[in-house]
């Protein structure tokens, strides 16, 4: 492929998990402050770890598949994107799973509302048996 291969892979990860917001109500972007407070320390720690590993020669990147744009401490821009994209994917998944288990995804809430409306309708119906 080409030097955008790493970035394209990150884009695919985002494209795959963004639908979790509308589908499962994983609305992490509606909580920008909480999101920033979550991501900043995590990104900082892993960025420094990455910089250390690159400086110590633990790993490096093939220039054919990366843009070659370097950030401070010799970290490729793709790595920063990774440290933001992967946590976002994880949080979207976490919120989607939580909503699913709690019965608070949009579909589940909609069904619950319809059930409640039907119960209320049946209770108020002249033919329905009303206790008391």
């Amino acid at each position: 492929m080409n030097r955008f291969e790493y970035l394209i892979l990150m884009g695919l990860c985002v494209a795959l998990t963004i639908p979790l917001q509308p589908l499962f109500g994983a609305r992490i972007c509606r909580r920008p402050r909480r999101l920033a407070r979550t991501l900043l320390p995590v990104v900082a720690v892993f960025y420094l770890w990455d910089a250390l590993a690159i400086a110590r020669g633990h790993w490096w990147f093939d220039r054919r598949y990366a843009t070659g744009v370097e950030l401070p401490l010799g970290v490729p821009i793709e790595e920063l994107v990774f440290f933001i994209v992967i946590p976002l994917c994880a949080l979207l998944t976490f919120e989607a799973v939580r909503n699913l288990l709690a019965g608070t995804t949009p579909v589940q809430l909609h069904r619950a509302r319809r059930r409640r409306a039907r119960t209320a309708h049946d209770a108020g119906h002249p033919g329905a048996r009303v206790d008391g």
Partner: protein
Amino acid sequence: MGEHTALAAVSVLAVIVLEHRVLRTGVFRSIPYWITLGICVAFMVPVNGWLTKLSAPIVLYAPAARTGWRFPLDIPVEDFAFGFSLLTLVVMSWMRAGASEPHEDRP
């Protein structure tokens, strides 16, 4: 076995100690966390596998710094320790940030 392996192992221990001694979010008792970890590791295999495949690697590793064990799809085993640390730290941090905001629901 080298610095890379050691750092990956230390990161796992550091995350566990951080949870038990400092943050105490209850992340390891959270069922959504374990399900999320399972889903993310399942997706990590193709993504990480693509980055580290030996046929055309995007990320290359110094043999001296690590164990050399690769499984599955040429993924260095150290990456799973790295992945556990990153994912767990993110969920812990998210739970912590939510708990300290009065209007946020607690996980």
